[in-house]
C-alpha cells in the first residue's frame, strides 16, 4: 500500500513538473519580462543588469529550476496589470472561490448521490423518470445560461436574492468569509446553485447507472434471499459498492468545480480567483495566469491523490493486494 501511494505521489510530482514547465514557458516565451518591467526609457545597461538580476542569462534548465524554487515559496512575481505580488492577490481572493466551491461541491455531492440513489431504486417510478428527463436538458444547458436564468428569476423578477458580489464579508485573520452575515449567505445561494447544478447532474447520472449495475449483482440477490430489509440492502450493501467507482469521478468533479467557478464568478461578478484569471487572460497578465495554473494544478493533483488514498479505506481488497478487484 505504501509503495502504491509513493508511486502515485511520484506521478503527481511529474504532472506538477510538466505544468510548471508550461507555466515557465509562458513567462519565457509569451511577452518579454524585461519589456514588461522596464518602461520606454531604458538603456542597454539597464537591460543587461536586469537580465543578470533576474537570472535570464543563465541556461534554460537552471532558470526553470529557479522558477520552480520560487513557485514553491509562493513567489510568482508581480502582476503586470496591478503591479502587486501575484501571491498577495491570489491569497486575498482565494477565500471567495473556496467558499463558493465548497458550498457547490457539498450541494452537488449530497443531492447528486441522493437523487442518483432515488432514481436507481425507484427506477420505474414517475418521479425518477421525470428527474432523468430534466437532467438530460441540464447537461446541454451551458452553466452561464443557468446563472442568467437564476438571476432573471430570483433577482430581476422576484427580487429575493442579490445578482452579484459576495454581500458583506467578515475578516477572520486574513480569511474573508461570507458565512457569518445574512447578506453574505444570501449572496452565496445563486452562485453555488449555478456552479453545483451541472456537477450534481453528472454525479446523479453516474450514481444511478453504477447503482443499477450493483443491484444486479449476486451478492445483492443473496442479501435479499437472506431476508435483509430493503433499507439495509440499498444503503448498506448496494450504496457502499456503488461508491467505489463513483468516488474517483466525484474527486475529479470537485477539481472541475474550481475550474468552472471561473464561469460562475464572471456571471455573478464574484470576487474570486476565477474572475481574476479571466481578467488576466483578457489583459494578458502572464504572471497571474501562470500562478493560477500552478495553484489549480496543485489542487487537482492533491484531490486525485486524496481520492486514491480514500480507496484504501473503502475497498478492503486494495488493502491487501493492489491488483485485486475485478
Amino acid at each position, binding site marked *: 500500500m505504501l509503495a502504491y501511494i509513493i508511486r502515485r505521489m511520484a506521478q503527481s510530482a511529474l504532472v506538477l513538473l*510538466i505544468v510548471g514547465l508550461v507555466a515557465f514557458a509562458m513567462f519565457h516565451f509569451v511577452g518579454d519580462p524585461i519589456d514588461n518591467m522596464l518602461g520606454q526609457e531604458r538603456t542597454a545597461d539597464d537591460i543587461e543588469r536586469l537580465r543578470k538580476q533576474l537570472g535570464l542569462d543563465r541556461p534554460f534548465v537552471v532558470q526553470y529550476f529557479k522558477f520552480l524554487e520560487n513557485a514553491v515559496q509562493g513567489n510568482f512575481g508581480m502582476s503586470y496589470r496591478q503591479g502587486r505580488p501575484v501571491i498577495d492577490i491570489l491569497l486575498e481572493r482565494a477565500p471567495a472561490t473556496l467558499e463558493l466551491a465548497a458550498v457547490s461541491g457539498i450541494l452537488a455531492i449530497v443531492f447528486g448521490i441522493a437523487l442518483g440513489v432515488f432514481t436507481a431504486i425507484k427506477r420505474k417510478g414517475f418521479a425518477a423518470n421525470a428527474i432523468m428527463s430534466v437532467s438530460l436538458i441540464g*447537461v*446541454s444547458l451551458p*452553466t*452561464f445560461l443557468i446563472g*442568467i436564468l437564476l438571476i432573471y428569476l430570483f433577482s430581476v423578477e422576484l427580487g429575493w436574492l442579490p445578482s452579484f458580489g459576495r454581500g458583506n464579508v467578515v475578516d477572520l485573520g486574513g480569511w474573508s468569509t461570507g458565512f457569518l452575515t445574512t447578506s453574505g449567505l444570501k449572496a452565496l445561494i445563486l452562485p453555488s446553485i449555478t456552479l453545483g447544478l451541472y456537477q450534481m447532474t453528472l454525479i446523479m447520472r453516474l450514481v444511478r447507472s453504477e447503482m443499477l449495475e450493483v443491484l444486479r449483482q449476486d451478492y445483492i440477490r443473496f442479501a435479499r434471499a437472506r431476508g435483509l430489509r430493503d433499507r439495509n440492502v440499498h444503503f448498506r450493501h448496494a450504496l457502499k459498492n456503488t461508491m467505489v467507482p463513483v468516488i474517483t469521478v466525484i474527486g475529479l468533479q470537485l477539481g472541475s468545480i474550481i475550474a468552472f467557478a*471561473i*464561469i460562475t464568478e*464572471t456571471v455573478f461578478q464574484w470576487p474570486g480567483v476565477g474572475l481574476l484569471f479571466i481578467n488576466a*487572460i483578457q489583459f494578458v497578465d502572464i504572471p497571474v495566469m501562470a500562478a493560477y495554473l500552478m495553484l489549480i494544478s496543485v489542487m487537482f493533483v492533491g484531490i486525485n491523490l486524496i481520492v486514491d488514498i480514500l480507496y484504501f479505506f473503502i475497498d478492503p481488497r486494495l488493502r491487501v493486494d493492489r491488483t485485486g478487484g475485478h
Partner: protein
Amino acid sequence: MSETPIPAQKSRLRAALESDLFYTFTRSPVAVVAAFVVLLMLLASVFAPLIAPTNPFDPASLNLMNGFTAPMAANDFTGDVFLLGTDDQGRDVFSTILYGMRISLFVGVSAVLFAMVLGITLGLLSGYLGGWVETIIMRTADVQLTFPSILVAMLIFGIAKGITPVEYRDQMAIWVLILAIGLSDWVQFARVVRGATLVEKNKEYVEAARLIGRGSGAIMLRHILPNVLSPVLVIATISLALAIIAEATLSFLGVGAPPTQPSLGTLIRIGQGFLFSGEWWILLFPATTLLALALSVNLLGDWLRDALNPRLR
C-alpha cells in the same frame, strides 16, 4: 467492424451504414426533430447574408434611432418593425443571431474537425508505432485529461493571445478560438482511435497488407482508418455540442469572439447587460437559439451513439 474481406469492405460498410442508420433514424422522432433543427440552423448560417434582413456589421445600414425596439412593435421614432426587436445600437436582433450562429457553428465545426484530424493522426501513430511515440502522446493526453477542457481552452487562448501582436488580436480571435477549443478536445479521438488501432493492427488483413509490402502510412490510411470511423463519428457529434458550448462560454466570458465578430456567446454577454433594464429580447433570443442548437446536436449525438455503437458509453 466484423472481419469483412478487404475488397468488399468499403461498399458493404457504407450500404449497411446507410440502410440500418436510416431505418433506426426514421423510427426515432427525437432524432428526426433534432436533425431537422440542426439542418435548419446549418442552412440558416450558411445563407445568413441572403436571409438576414440587414447586415448588422455594415454601419451604413444601422440607424441609432432604431435602438431598443421591442419585437414585432413599431419603433417610436422611425416606425420600423423588427421580428425579434433591436439592440442598443439599433441592430436587428434576428440578423445578429443569424450571423452569430454562423460564427458559433463555424468555430464549433472547425474546432471539431481540427481536433478530429489531430486526434486521429496521433491516435493512429501511437497505436500503430507504439514505443516512445505512444508513451509521449498518451502521457500528454493523460496530463491534459486531468484538467477540464474549458480550462485548457482558456489557457491556450490566453497564451495565443499573448503571442499575437496587439493589432492583430481581434482579427485573429476566431482562429485562436478554433485552435484553443480544438487542442482542448483531441484526447477523446486519440484514445478511441489508438484503442481500435491496437485491435485492428493484429488482424490478418493488416498482417497480409504488411506482408505484401504496403508501407505503414498506406496501411494506416487504407485499412485501419475505415474501421474506426463510426466511433469517431459519434465522438465528433458529441464533441460538436461541447465545442459549441465551449465557444459560447469563452465568448460569454469575454475571452472568445470579439464584439466586432459576435458569436451567440458574445451576443448573450451583450444581452446580459440589459437584463435589469427590461430589454429582455436582446438576451432571450440568442440564449434560446444557443440552447436549441446545443440540445439538438447533443440529442443527435446521443442517438447516433446508441444506433452506431451501443457499447461506446
